[in-house]
């Protein structure tokens, strides 16, 4: 290509060489910009995960204080006359452990406010489990107050003036004494994973929200999976080409793109106000999220059904199988990995959804673990939202820790989906 038009181009000339160089520089720059965009996105993800983890890792540990507790029946208000086992058990479960803890903390630590306000609950549960403890003296590790927590985790900035640290000098002194005596420790926060919400940050746990999420997801899956697969089968295998089918298809495609909060409005107007269902109940949340998940499952199931080669269908029909048999015995088994992948992805989206559930009242403060789908409950993302609004310092790490749990669940669900897709995906 030495000839271009009438002018002869000298590619070896300095001018042309410089021009080519410039073009290559531009090429490299463009490429670097592209790489930069990917790196920015990835480093944002890394930064997000890092921030959440470094904030949240403390939420899995809590400060505990050693107390020598004398389970004196007199202080607990348990009569010796409660001789029958059952009566004794009820007496213990009704006994007030607060004075016992307060006096022990006052005597041994010098300040009863160093112990968490709710520490007596765990102590009571221990005694309920083992009534023979009554009358004995035991060394027990009880949950510390929030200021003990932040001191033990080194979250107090001692460079600040004493009045701006958020903890009084007396408390710091008390903490230092306790540490020298070995009466304070940082232990795994078992309560975080086994208890429900609480107004005390050191006692708040995610178990209640996790159960709420599981109940809600059970309803969502139970409704959207069968309905979604049935719709997909109908549209792929039965539906005649007519107006109604078109309307169904348009509806599904639009529903997939409707903002999730609109489903919350739907749930509020239809399930709560028209049908009068229970506010805050997992069954309403599950129904609402099922309607949101349905189009995702339908669309992915249709893709999966479409990718089944026609030869399988024809062969089955050829040897006399009915349409239903073709579907149940051949199409669905072959398409199942694709259907399941879509279902898991839809479900993981529903699991992380917050906004529609806020509207149907699943933001109630629920301090009990829900036992059924009609009881007030909250779910993990809503719990995160609620805690993020709390002013207490301990809730920051609780929020991040809850996010860690949620992300772990979601990422493992996605990993399962990817695994399924790679393992069972067949190319025909």
């Amino acid at each position: 290509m030495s000839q271009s038009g009438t002018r002869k181009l000298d590619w070896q000339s300095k001018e042309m060489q410089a021009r080519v160089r410039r073009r290559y520089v531009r090429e490299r720059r463009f490429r670097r910009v592209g790489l930069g965009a990917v790196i920015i996105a990835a480093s944002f993800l890394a930064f997000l995960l890092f921030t959440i983890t470094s904030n949240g890792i403390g939420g899995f540990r809590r400060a505990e204080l050693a107390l020598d507790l004398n389970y004196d029946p007199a202080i607990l208000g348990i009569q010796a006359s409660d001789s029958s086992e059952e009566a004794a058990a009820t007496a213990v479960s009704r006994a007030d452990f607060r004075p016992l803890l307060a006096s022990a903390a006052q005597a041994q630590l010098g300040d009863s406010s160093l112990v968490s306000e709710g520490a007596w609950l765990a102590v009571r549960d221990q005694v309920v489990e083992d009534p023979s403890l009554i009358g004995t003296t035991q060394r027990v590790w009880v949950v510390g107050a929030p200021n003990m927590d932040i001191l033990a985790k080194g979250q107090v900035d001692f460079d600040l003036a004493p009045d701006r640290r958020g903890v009084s000098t007396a408390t710091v002194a008390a903490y230092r004494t306790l540490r020298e005596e070995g009466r304070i420790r940082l232990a795994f926060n078992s309560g975080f994973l086994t208890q429900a919400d609480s107004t005390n940050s050191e006692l708040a746990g995610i178990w209640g929200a996790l159960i709420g999420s599981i109940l809600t997801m059970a309803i969502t899956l139970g409704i959207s999976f069968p309905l979604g697969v049935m719709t997909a089968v109908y549209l792929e295998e039965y539906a005649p080409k007519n107006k109604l089918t078109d309307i169904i298809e348009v509806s599904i495609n639009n529903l997939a793109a409707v903002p999730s909060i609109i489903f919350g409005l739907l749930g509020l107007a239809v399930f709560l106000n028209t049908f009068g269902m229970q506010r805050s109940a997992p069954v309403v949340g599950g129904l609402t999220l099922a309607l949101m998940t349905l189009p995702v499952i339908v669309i992915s199931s249709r893709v999966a059904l479409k990718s089944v080669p026609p030869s399988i269908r024809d062969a089955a029909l050829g040897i006399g199988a009915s349409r239903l048999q073709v579907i149940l015995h051949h199409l669905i088994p072959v398409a199942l990995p694709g259907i399941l992948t879509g279902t898991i992805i839809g479900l993981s989206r529903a699991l992380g959804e917050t906004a529609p559930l806020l509207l149907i009242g699943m933001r109630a403060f629920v301090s009990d673990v829900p036992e059924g789908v009609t009881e007030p409950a909250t779910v993990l993302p809503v719990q995160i939202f609620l805690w993020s609004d709390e002013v207490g310092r301990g809730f920051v790490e609780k929020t991040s820790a809850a996010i860690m749990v949620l992300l772990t669940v979601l990422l493992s669900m996605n990993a399962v989906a990817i695994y399924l897709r790679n393992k069972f995906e067949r190319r025909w």
Partner: protein
Amino acid sequence: MSLGAFALVLLALATLSYVAARARARAFKVDSHHHVHSRPSYHGLRAGLTALVPAGLLILAWGIVGDGVVAEQTLSQLPEASRPAPGLDKQAFLNEVRGVVSGELPAAFRPAANEAVPIYRSTQQSWTLLIGGLAVLLALIGGGYAWLRTAPDVRARTQVEMFATVVLALASLIAILTTLGIVLSLLYESLEFFSRVNPLEFIFGTQWSPQTAIRADQVGSSGAFGAVPLFWGTIFIGAIIAMLVAIPLGLMAAIYLTQYARSSTRKILKPLLEILAGVPTVVYGYFAALTVAPAVRDLAISVGIESASSESALAAGSVMGIMIIPFISSMADDALSSVPGAMRDGSFALGATSSETIKRVLVPAALPGIVGGVLLAISRAIGETMIVVMAAGQAANLTANPLESVTTVTAQIVQLLTGDQEFDSAKTLSAFALGLVLFIVTLMLNIYALTVVKRYREAYE
């Protein structure tokens, strides 16, 4: 006996019909003179379904309307004085009564509710017996009839298949019902709202302060429902700031991943982007509120802008933009890869570098697809809720300053509907009007974007 027990009886009856009819069908003589239309299990299924379906529908219908019927009857049997007022009071009253009946509450707080408990219980009991008995009778008749009619020439398989088709078709109607439900509930509540507030004022008014409108009679004159600041906030955050972040990053990421990256690199980077898409929005919101917003404020203060708010449009919008990156990138990916290879090869053959090919050939050719993707991304961004609820604030400012706090349609919907309030107030109803606007706008954007994308794909096919 509870309704659940009756349902179990029904299942047992259906199974029985199935087994009996199948056994009967198995005994058919089959030889060259006697043709049997269907296999025995189809006869069984037919009988089982005839027993189960009508009775099951009856029980299901009662399960839905039953509580209401029982409640009405109970209330009508109560003396006039102890009946609760309609509305919320009635709801609370009934909740108490039901709580006691189901054993969740030891006793009701209101004496009248305690009075109603035995009436409720006995009404419920008799209705349950009636409906359950009817259902069992239906099942017996249906199963028995099908069993009697089990004959070699009965087209059991065709009937079962027909039934399955009908069930599948009904399932697919749920999508239409959902859409209808959304449209009707939004429309109904919005009309209610517009009967109290002038629609023109809602769409063109620039004052938004629903909190002041406590009494319904104040609303019309107070002019507190002008939604323009909300619309502006939504566009400002979702369509401007978020897109300024998401479009360049998403597009460049897609270009790099599809045109430059080696497949091994792509295998690592693409899932990373997908993780970004899988992070729940509440997590982004928390991150925006906890980390990004204070950083933005500190930065603004350090360059001398003292008035910077701790909740800013910039923080919410940029985090939202990051969230949208994977979405834009995958749409751009699709658009770029559907440009015919010949165009790319032609450009290379003329001596263009990769970047020249991308900038002058691929992107212009894929532009409609990319624009469609961006429109879809905008529709997603303006419907996004949690980030703006947590990081953008609640102040309805009409401002173009990204460091100020603005609020959006979605944030206001949440704000309006999560307090304790009467359902029927203009304040609550306005949330539905906002929802209707949001629904219509996102729907238009989606339909338009999908048409653009579709037409573009067809152009190259």
